[in-house]
Structure formats: structure tokens, C-alpha cells
């Protein structure tokens, strides 16, 4: 359902994506790893329409979405989270989630959606479920900016899920979290996010990738250098060189 062919993207002189071929057919969680600067986040950015590709194509459910504007891509059922949690800071947790619903097809037509109506009630019910599932129910009336990091990341996840996407792109969902928090996040992804949709997870924490993903794709310098089950990929000498070789260079 997601098919990427020869994707290229450069910024000035830097080639962030140098021809990526990638496709996903099934549901489940897939990993995307690679050293810093290998193009993982850029790939997400191009898929979600932040930057148009400089070459190549992206197909989602057989529709060519390359270069479409972000809001139209979002409407097709692709959602993402960001490396640093990006939420509406001056709104409460609940309002943040509700905001995600405002542009869903069902919301249209009812201008005064915030008035009572059966559609509204259903939507609010959906929010309640989401809050419960992500463990945010108790803090739902707090300002988003007041939340500690792990809760902000949950909020990130929740607001991506609020639109019931078919494809979910998670960018370092466990960044900055302790091992326990990482484990909880992995559980959350497995139990709440993954069922019924396709997720791509960018992470540096290999144990999380190992635990979650059926298949892992490795990028380096904007190219795909490996794609296999986690166990295999982490033994691949090419992959190891990409990581450790890079470390040596930086030292």
C-alpha cells in the first residue's frame, strides 16, 4: 500500500535522499533505522508532504501522492509524530486531541460542532477511549506544555491516532525516555497503535526495534543499505560499518 520509487531530495548541496526504493504491503510495525543524518526524518517529511521530492515517486494505495500538500496527504490517512513532541502548547490535552478531529470528513458541515449533537457526542466518546488507551485520561484538562516528556510523547501518539490513520509514522517515539518509559511506549505502540494499521518507527533504541518490528529498513547517506528482520539486520556487516564507521569518523 505504500510504494516509494527512486525518491530523491536535496537541500542546497546536500543530498538527503539519494534514490530510495521502499514498499510496504501489510499491517504491522516496521522499523527505519540508520545513523544520524541518513535521511530517516527527511523521508518522513517528504512522505507527509512537507517537502516535495526532487525525483522519484510515492504511491499510497496506488495513488501518486508525491508533492501533494500536507493537508491533503493527511486527509488520505497518513499521520506522523515528530522528534520533539509537537503539540498545541496553549491548549489542554483534550483540546489537542479534539483539534485533530476538526478536519475529519465527519466534522464538516456542522459549523457549530462544539454544540451538542449526536455526531459530536460520538466524537467525544472516541476521545475518551483514546485518552484511556494512552493513559492520559487523568491529565486531560492540563495544559499540554505542562506535561512531562513521556506524557507529551503519549499525547503526540494520541493526537496522531485521533485521526484513525491507515499509515502512522513515528519519529523517535521513545527519544529521551528511560528504559522503563521506553518499554511502556513500546507496549503502547504494540497494543494501541499497531492493530489495524501500518506503522513505521524511526528509532535509535535497538531493543525497542527488535521487540516491535517484523522488518527493519536501514538507511545511510540517503540510501537504503539493508532491509530484513531485525535480528539479521543488526548482524549485517554493511549496517555495522555504517554505524560504527560513522562513530570512528566523529571521534
Amino acid at each position: 500500500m505504500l510504494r516509494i520509487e527512486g525518491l530523491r531530495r536535496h537541500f542546497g548541496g546536500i543530498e538527503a535522499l539519494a534514490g530510495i526504493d521502499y514498499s510496504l504491503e501489510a499491517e504491522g510495525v516496521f522499523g527505519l533505522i540508520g545513523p544520524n543524518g541518513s535521511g530517516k526524518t527527511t523521508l518522513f517529511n517528504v512522505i507527509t508532504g512537507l517537502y516535495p521530492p526532487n525525483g522519484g515517486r510515492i504511491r499510497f494505495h496506488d495513488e501518486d501522492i508525491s508533492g501533494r500538500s500536507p493537508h491533503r496527504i493527511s486527509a488520505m490517512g497518513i499521520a506522523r509524530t515528530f522528534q520533539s513532541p509537537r503539540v498545541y502548547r496553549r491548549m489542554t490535552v483534550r483540546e489537542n486531541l479534539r483539534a485533530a478531529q476538526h478536519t475529519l470528513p465527519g466534522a464538516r458541515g456542522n459549523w457549530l460542532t462544539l454544540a451538542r449533537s449526536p455526531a459530536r457526542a460520538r466524537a467525544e466518546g472516541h476521545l475518551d477511549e483514546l485518552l484511556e488507551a494512552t493513559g492520559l485520561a487523568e491529565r486531560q484538562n492540563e495544559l499540554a506544555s505542562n506535561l512531562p516528556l513521556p506524557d507529551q510523547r503519549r499525547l503526540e501518539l494520541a493526537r496522531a491516532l485521533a485521526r484513525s490513520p491507515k499509515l502512522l509514522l513515528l519519529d523517535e517515539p521513545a527519544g529521551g525516555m528511560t528504559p522503563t518509559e521506553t518499554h511502556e511506549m513500546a507496549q503502547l505502540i504494540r497494543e494501541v497503535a499497531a492493530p489495524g494499521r501500518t506503522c513505521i518507527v524511526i528509532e535509535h533504541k535497538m531493543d525497542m526495534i527488535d521487540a516491535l518490528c517484523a522488518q527493519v529498513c536501514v538507511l545511510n547517506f540517503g540510501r537504503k543499505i539493508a532491509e530484513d528482520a531485525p535480528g539479521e539486520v543488526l548482524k549485517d556487516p554493511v549496517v555495522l560499518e555504517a554505524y560504527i564507521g560513522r562513530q570512528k569518523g566523529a571521534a
Partner: protein
Amino acid sequence: MIDFIQNSVDGIMIGSRYALLAIGFTLIFGVMRRLNLSYGPSIMIGVFVGTFIFIEFKAGWMAVAAATLVGAVIAGIYVERLCFWAIRQGAALASMVSSFAIWMQLEEFVTLSFPDRTYPFPPLTGDVPLKIAGISIQLSYLVMFAMATTLMLALNLALYRTRFGLAVRAVSENPVAARFMGINTSRVIFFAFVVASALGGFAGFLIAANEQQVTPLFGLWATFKGLIAMMLGGMGSVPGAILGGFLLGVIERQATWYLGAEFRDLVAYGLLFVFLAFRPGGLLGQRLAERERLALRRV
């Protein structure tokens, strides 16, 4: 053709005023990322202090210049402390509106203290038209151009050869990183303001000396010319401000010649608008729209 060249030369001469005004504006914007709408008025205070000295004490142009500078700097410090330093980081709109409020305050203060429409100001040189290669240039314009250029070179030197200049550039580029490197950003901003006000004061002096008079409309006029010149050249860029100033001078002159005086400002604003729509970075701001989008979307 000769007209075009004459206009261009005149435009560059006049443009040096705008360039000087724009430099101060852009310095402040560079370190603070906010517009100081009181820039013109604070210079005006300086200029009126100068004219006061001139009228009361029949002082020579050097004393008047010094007085103008001091007046402008003091007014600049007043604005900086009240509108920018006192308002916490992040409330940028509040700062700008505050600077607008102080603009009105300063302007009224001047009109109250100096109720006549115009006041005399000592000239730097006499009205001596020169002819160089068939183009006529007023001596006073040339002197102004020479002094302005010297100042710009001096500033450039300061920015690139001194530690203070380095600090200013660091804060302009990335205030957070600068702070982490131990730079006292609020002190840098303060001194940038002082330098900008001094430059502005000197610009005001040159302009008033050229006109041999001052009016209370100076504040508004200076703010706008400085602003447009700064935007044309690229916000935050000193060489851009200089280029923008010259460009504005030339454009104005040509527009006045070919279209008439009423269209002069219209063309200037139109040009500004077009720049903002297609090239907000100005002449020297690097493909700004693209860069800024990238910066914004650094996700």
C-alpha cells in the same frame, strides 16, 4: 540616457542617507528579531537637541553633531530599556506596539517643545554644485555620501574585526547558542542599540545639515525610509541595508523623474511589496522563503 545616469547618481547620493538609517534598523533587528518603530523618533530627538544647541548657543557644526549623537543615543537607550529590555522574551508583538506607543510619545514631546513647523540647522558645506564628467553633483551631497561610506566601512570593520562585532553577529545568528557560549546577550543587545542610535544620530545630523532645517515629521520619515531600505536589502544584513538604501535612493529619483513626485512613494512601497511577495530575504537575504521554510520545518 544622461538623465538616467544623473538620476542614478543623485539617487545614490541620497541613498546614502537611507543606507545609514537602514543600518541602524537592521542592527537592532538582527540582534533582537523585533522591529523598533521608535527608531526614527529617537533620532529625531537627537536632531532637535542639535538644533537647540545651534539656536541657543550658535554652536558650530561639530558641537551640533555631537549633541545630535548624544541626544539620539539617550533616546535610544530610553526606548531600549522601556520597550525591549523590560518586555520578556517572546512577547515580540508587545515590544513592537510598545515602541509604537513611545514613537507617539516622543513625537508629541518634540512638537510640544518645538511648536514651529521648521527649525534651522547648520550646514556642513555651502551649496556648491560640482560637475564631474557631465554629471552635476551637489558638494553637500558628496560630503554626505563620503561620510556615510566611511561610517559604513568603519562599522563593517567593527563587526568583523572586533570581539564586540563577533558577539553581535553571534547573537544575530542564534541567540540561544550565543548565550550558551557565554555571551551576555542582553548586554550585546544594549550596545547594539547604542551603536545603532549613534549611527542613526549621525545620519540624522547629516540629513538635517543637508536640508539645513528640521521638522517634526522627521521621525516618521526616517522610520519608513530605514524600514524600506532594510527590507529591500534583507532584514538583519548590514551590507544589505547599505545596498537597499542606495537602491531606494535610485528608485525614488527615477520614479520622481519619470512619473512625478506623487508616485515616488507609491513606487517604493510597490517595490517593497513585490520583494516581500517573491523575495522576502531582500537582495542579500539568501532565497529566504526556502530557507525559512526549512528552518521552520526542522522537525
